[in-house]
């Protein structure tokens, strides 16, 4: 009997191994963006869609001569590279770019408040360009935004992320191995006041042209909150979907038990956002693109564990979430044997199965909760279905009736989901529509399930 059981376990492990290898390109979930050393960005006007069904007139940056996007293209470069950003302008106002934390030389255009600016576009006049050059001296998470009338132009959308990867260590956020990650996700958080956008659109799209005095930023009252330029639940839709042409980036973290997940927070707006990761704490390892460490230390010895991190306007935070395994939950996250026959073979000296990452001391322990009857649960009329039918990893079950007009079953792989969102709960709305705003659902999927 013992022999048979061990063979069975081996077979299960082999199967899991095969699943891990099977996807042709397992694909490290990584940050979407433009790579290279030279980027041409064009400031243009366009509209975006928000989860309440509204659309908002925006100013944004497009890659090359392409359509503008919100936020601007995420620029992904490598430590030590000399970076050139060429800015062109089709907007009726002057624009510029600043790269906080970088020593930038700018040429062309005219001198502005913070850097050199591209003058406002004028019909029939060839557009000028400003060239910004800097060396990406340090790896880390950074941002860029307009340095011209920044109170107005950042509100209008001229903001983006800059990621500098350490040379030779693409799977680390910094040069220290303590910053290694299995998967990474960008959270560029912003907010907007749709009334200001309406006021400016009425002015700028009229025959008289833009009257900047028609908007008073001291009266700004944001009611829309974004992650990577989208409101919930659009945050979790695929990237580059046709129905969000100016909001290409999503924010849908998916990972396996045991993965080290890097969160790159960029606060792009003008307000503070306390961001909360359900599930477990995150370890804050860096701020403003610098590891938190004492002088002389290579490792982030000043890293702090938190469940809510304040995103300060203009600043960035890198944090490691996980590895999540369900350790010490007191129940088997893969379900009991009657529901999901499986084994847990802890590695020597460890409590974890090296393949499934299951916490073996809790193996086969039932969920200590009596689940409600199927007839007593429902999906909300607005929202996204993250309930997979059971609380167990990799085990799907019957789900409540779904109103296809307002909800979507998003969890067909039996994942466990945690909401990662602004802890300022009013920011979980899109212009007063709940649920929306600055939220995503992080989905833990069983080992063996491919992650796009």
């Amino acid at each position, binding site marked *: 009997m013992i022999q048979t059981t061990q063979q069975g376990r081996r077979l299960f492990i082999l199967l899991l191994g095969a699943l891990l290898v099977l996807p042709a390109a397992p694909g490290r979930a990584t940050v979407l963006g433009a790579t290279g050393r030279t980027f041409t960005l064009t400031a243009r006007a366009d509209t975006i869609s928000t989860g309440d069904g509204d659309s908002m007139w925006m100013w944004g940056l497009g890659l090359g001569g392409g359509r503008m996007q919100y936020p601007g293209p995420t620029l992904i470069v490598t430590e030590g590279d000399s970076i050139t950003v060429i800015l062109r302008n089709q907007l009726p106002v002057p624009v510029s770019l600043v790269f906080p934390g970088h020593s930038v030389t700018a040429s062309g255009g005219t001198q502005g*408040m913070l850097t050199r600016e591209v003058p406002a576009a004028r019909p029939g006049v060839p557009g000028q360009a400003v060239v910004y050059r800097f060396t990406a001296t340090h790896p880390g998470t950074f941002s860029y935004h307009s340095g011209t009338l920044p*109170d107005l132009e950042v509100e209008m959308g001229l903001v983006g992320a800059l990621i500098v990867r350490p040379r030779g260590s693409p799977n680390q956020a910094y040069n220290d191995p303590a910053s290694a990650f299995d998967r990474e996700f960008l959270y560029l958080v912003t907010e907007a006041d749709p009334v200001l956008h309406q006021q400016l659109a009425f002015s700028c799209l009229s025959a008289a042209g833009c009257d*900047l005095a028609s908007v008073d930023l001291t009266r700004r009252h944001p009611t829309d909150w974004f992650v990577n330029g989208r409101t919930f639940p659009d945050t979790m839709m695929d990237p580059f979907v046709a129905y969000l042409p100016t909001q290409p980036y999503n924010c849908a973290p998916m990972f396996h038990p045991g993965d080290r997940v890097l969160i790159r927070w960029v606060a792009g707006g003008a307000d503070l956002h306390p961001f909360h990761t359900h599930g477990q704490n995150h370890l804050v390892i860096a701020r*403003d693109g610098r590891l938190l460490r004492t*002088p002389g230390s290579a490792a982030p010895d000043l890293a702090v564990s938190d469940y809510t991190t304040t995103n*300060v*306007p203009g*600043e960035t935070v890198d944090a490691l979430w996980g590895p999540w395994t369900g350790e010490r939950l007191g129940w088997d996250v893969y379900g009991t044997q009657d529901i999901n026959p499986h084994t847990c073979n802890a590695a020597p000296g460890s409590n974890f199965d090296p393949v499934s990452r299951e916490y073996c001391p809790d193996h086969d322990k039932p969920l200590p909760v009596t689940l409600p009857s199927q007839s007593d649960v429902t999906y909300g009329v607005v929202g996204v279905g993250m309930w997979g039918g059971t609380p167990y990893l990799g085990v799907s079950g019957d789900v409540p009736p779904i109103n296809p007009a307002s909800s979507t079953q998003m969890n067909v792989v039996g994942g466990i989901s945690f909401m990662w969102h602004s802890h300022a709960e009013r920011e979980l709305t899109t212009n007063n529509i709940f649920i929306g705003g600055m939220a995503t659902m992080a989905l833990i999927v069983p080992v063996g399930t491919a992650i796009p």
Partner: protein
Amino acid sequence: MSLNHRLSRFHSRTWVGCLTCLGLVACGNPESRAPAAAGTPERGPAAAAAPSLDAPVLPTVEVYLRAEAFDLPAMAFNNPAPIRMWGFAECKEAFTSCGQPTVPGPALGVEEGGTLTIHVINGLAGPYVEPVSVVIPGQAATMNPVWFDPVTGSVTATGARPAGDYTSRVRSFTAETPPDGATVTSYSWTGLRAGTYLYQSGSHPAVQMQMGLFGALLVYPVNSALAYPDPSTAFDAEVTLLFSEIDPVLHDAIAAGLYGSQPPSPPPAGWLTSTIEYRPQYFFINGQSFRPAMPVLPAGVRGGRLLIRFLNAGLSNRVPAVQGPYMSVIAEDGHPYMVTSSTGSVLPAPREQYSVLLPAGKTVDAILVPAAAGDIPVYDRRFGLSNAGTSPGGMLVYLAVAGTAPSQQPLRLSTTRLVFNTAGLRAVTVRNTGISARVITGAEIVGGGANPAPDAFSVSNTAPVTLAGGSSATFLVSFNPTTTNPTALLNFSTNDPLTPLLTVRLVGIRR
């Protein structure tokens, strides 16, 4: 005078002066100020004990502030109408005369461990006035809160609330100075902590902070080349950036007498019962909103260590950002960032950031080492960058970094100015911050200043003193007044080629 001139690198131990002024209100000349009163026994510990070389004399600093109402003129920063302010004016000893009130109030510089006494007269005038006081968050003091009955508005107690009284509420954190233009209330702090602090009214702060009753307090360690008593906080130059805001609605209501929790019936148009609807329209650094021709702030030299003291006297979060370089954020609320290592040693733990969260009421200190000469923009990343919506404006300044390489002068004075409140002894220390030994070849008192009287002063030690690298020597100067307000110079001659002569200005106060 420049509205933003920084303190000298070797800050005088007892210098009290105006760092910052608002709008078009002129600052007084700090050199003309009498910073200290004639000593009284309880205020003159400096003279009471004969100090040893190991225990430097700790000064008592006395400051005279008068709260006054004044109007910022229209169009000072695109404001269409004058704006009523309440500010502190710095006065001469015993309030014999006062300068102009300013917002922020005069910056006060004192020495760690010393005693600060602020004497206050409340000269607020207008249809609506209030009692005022002074508190310093982060500095210990004996507080005497003032309690009132929220129904009748009358004061019920000062100090502890009487037993059994569960309804009285605090309206002032400490003793009030009534708005009679005459009563002097003295507020004292002993054993001052080093660092950057706000002093502010502790009475009805919801109104009085907005109206402008605040200023900066800078407390220097005994070695005034440090921000805190830790070598990692050494600096060569410093600049103070005090952030504040104005919502003119409250100011207009105060000026028109339309403020109060219990309005007449029916309430007149424009009456405010609280400050809850706070929407600042004007944004200031050191009392100035940005304008294109604004002068830059001198900020030391390329490669030097610039100490930036950020203070937020406004009611909103601010995020000062420097464009380009990083700062080493070293302290918050007057406490340096330190950590205890696994071996038990306490280490500095500065944070490398290009911006810093500056919540309302907080102070943050940072060291910036500019790599190049030029102007570094500092602005609010929460974008308080307009004047009532008109851009550019608001919270933006430029730090002007000079191109000269930092000098390598190893000999440094603990102070360049000694002020004597009374007959007695004061100490001055010469420190050799270099590696090689230097010799102080002589110490001599000569005539100088406004009323040259070298005979009024003498120095304890005139013999040559050899200073090994890292060591220091303390000299005691005694003062025995012979004439009114005598002045002199204490000259140290040295064998250091870069600083052959170090001079301390001596000022005695005698009426």
